């Protein structure tokens, strides 16, 4: 059977994302990539933690951060993580429309998160907290911005994926692609949990 063929309920494997060698390779390779990404973000976190008190004349994190807004952003991203896991459940049940629906909700939540982040950054810049104003500014925008870029890339990714497979059922060819996106999205959420805690909450206590 060809990997690109639409699966039926009768021949649907328990793990369509790992049913081919290509799928297994992608699955493992992507997990390892996430292990590397952990180090990438750790380096950014370390840089931020080393420089977070170096705000010079500019406002401190305590003065700047608007926790309710960030809390809302956190909720959006957490919920989008749940919807992407629902999409994976639909994937395992061969329900392609429900899968696409949940991923579309994920996309919308992700875009909402990005909107909040842009609003937030814009606000900070007006408060005198810019990329070049201090070491704190550089480190803050680099860490949070790297995460934001990951969210933006994820939005592009899922858009392309849904667009390409809109009229196609689940196959052994596209199942790993859906699954990998969900992994990526969860990971981005994991990073945000730490940004929320380390940057914003800890920023409030100094």
């Amino acid at each position, binding site marked *: 059977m*060809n*990997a*690109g063929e639409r699966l039926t309920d009768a021949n649907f494997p328990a793990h369509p994302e790992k049913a081919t*060698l290509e799928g*297994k*390779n992608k699955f*493992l*390779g992507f997990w*390892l*990539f996430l*292990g*590397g*990404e952990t*180090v*990438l973000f750790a*380096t*950014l976190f*370390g*840089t931020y933690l*080393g*420089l977070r008190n*170096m*705000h*010079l004349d500019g406002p401190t994190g305590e003065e700047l951060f608007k926790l309710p807004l960030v809390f809302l952003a956190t909720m959006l991203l957490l919920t989008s993580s749940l919807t992407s896991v629902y999409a994976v459940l639909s994937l395992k049940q061969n329900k392609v429309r429900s899968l696409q629906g949940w991923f579309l909700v994920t996309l919308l939540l992700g875009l909402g998160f990005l909107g909040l982040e842009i609003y937030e950054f814009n606000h900070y810049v007006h408060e005198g907290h810019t*990329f*070049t104003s*201090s*070491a*704190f*500014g*550089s*480190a803050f925008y*680099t860490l949070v911005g790297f995460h934001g870029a990951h969210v933006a890339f994820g939005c*592009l990714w899922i858009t*392309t*994926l849904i667009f*390409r497979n809109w009229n196609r059922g689940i196959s052994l*060819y596209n199942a790993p*692609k859906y699954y990998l996106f969900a992994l990526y999205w969860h990971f981005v959420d994991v990073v945000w949990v730490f940004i929320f805690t380390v940057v914003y909450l800890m920023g409030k206590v100094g």
Partner: protein
Amino acid sequence: MATHESHKKRSGLMDWLTTVDHKKIGILYLLAGGFFFLIGGLEAILMRIQLIKPENDLFTGELFNQLLTMHGTTMIFLAAMPMIFAYMNAVIPLQIGARDVAFPYVNAVGFWLFFFGGVLLNLSWFLGGAPEAGWTAYAPLSTSAQDTGVDFYVLGLQIAGAGTLAGGINFLVTIINMRAPGMTFMRMPLFTWASFVTSGLILFAFPALTVGFFLLMFERVFDANFFNPEMGGNILIWEHIFWIFGHPEVYILILPAFGIISEVVSTFSNKRLFGYSAMVFATVLIGFLGFMVWVHHMFTVGLGPVTNSIFAVATMAIAIPTGVKIFNWIFTMWGGQIRFTTAMLFAVGFIPTFVMGGVTGVMLAVPAADYQYHDSYFVVAHFHYVIVGGLILGLFSGLYYWYPRIFNRVLNETLGKINFWLFFIGFHLTFFPQHWLGLMGMPRRVFTYMSGQHLDEANFVSTIGALFMGAGTIVLFINIIVTASSKKVADKDPWDGRTLEWSMPVPTPEYNFAQTPLVRGLDALFVEKMAGNGKMTPAEPVGEIHMPNGSILPFVLSLGLFIAGFALIYANWIIAGVGLGIVLLTMFLRSILDDHGYHIHKEEVEADIKGGRA
């Protein structure tokens, strides 16, 4: 089971630009890495010529700094790394009984990223001068440099580094998922094991460097303040990030050489590797410890006696697994029927040379003593003993050993031995006197010295040695030309090999194994030879073979990043946007266009087997 799309056969240049075959990508890595090796070597010889006599004024000041920076950067990132990837590509799938790597497309992306990154970096020579802040690019030297040299450094290496990371993940997955039936982890040849650990180190060390380069780029292009003390920044952030990557990098380089030496010593001693499981354990342990010792590059920063002591002890601990390896190689040779081929000569030359580099390494690991050695020629001697005396001798050994498998010709042994002796003697002439130069107080990275300080003779000898090494390398290239022009095709197993890469005919079929082999022990081919079979037992019947399609997209994607990087150096946002647009477009095309590969039909495979081609 019909073929999805008709398979386009490409020829000539287009074939090389679109190939996803690991054997061809290995050759590309070898050619590009070899080219950069020549450039880096030339830079070294020019530096040595400047230092041949006191107060010489041939290449002074800025130009010397550029040569020095580009020599180190080129040799590490553009010569050594790609040549390691060349062997990994050429050999690993064959050694584990796989038809391909896990991600053939990503493999091509990795190569082209490295290639364009290297080209970008070297273009700096023609566009306002090469970087001059040393290969370590310490801030504030790198952040305050006014010309564009460091911009080329940071963007070129960023692009090349992304390719390396892709390659690392590819080989991890290949080794975990694609081993032939019976090829358990503890039956893998040691080169595969070493490459496995090296790939793991790449996976966890390169992201730190990626961030470091981003920070440096942001600092230079977008006026960020990570390393600027006036704005609250801290220069030590760069040093830490660089060495958190940089020390594992040393093991990324040396472990594959350990693997090559293990293969060569075992093959040419006609003996199973002594202490195989200890060798594996030592390899993994070195990989692990490699992450815990980076501060020994920063002893003189002043992090305090406790920190320095902890990292000193951790550093010295690495001598233990390394010692295990040295003894195991010696015990492998003990009582073996040794054949001194060129490959074996390089391997045997490697052992004492590397031990000397290791001993000076332990000396440098003592913080109190390091305050004396730091930034002197003693350090230069030490790391050239481990990198040239270790890695490069290993790579040469591997080249002579695997050349028949990669290029279907056996290199000329007489020229090979001339190559070895010139290079080996030249190496020790160059670097042995540098220990004394360092102890007598000559700092590294200086472009001249005064006469009457007892530095003249050693510097003169050192330069003569460098010329010997150059001559040795020229002999190698003569050898390659001579071999290429001979019509004599290599035997499929010219060294009486022990591992799977010697089990298929020459040239290696496109699909490597007509039938996946069944592995029945360590040194899989040797096990079958001992059982009287002489060839591998197949693990499957002859059938259709699935192959990946070639693609031009990896080339275009890397070209896009090259354009973007180039534009960023000159702060041309429009062209940078175009470059990134090309990158995104190729990624979009890759996800939009299905690529199911194609099949080689059973009849073709059967015909190949009958004709002795598979």
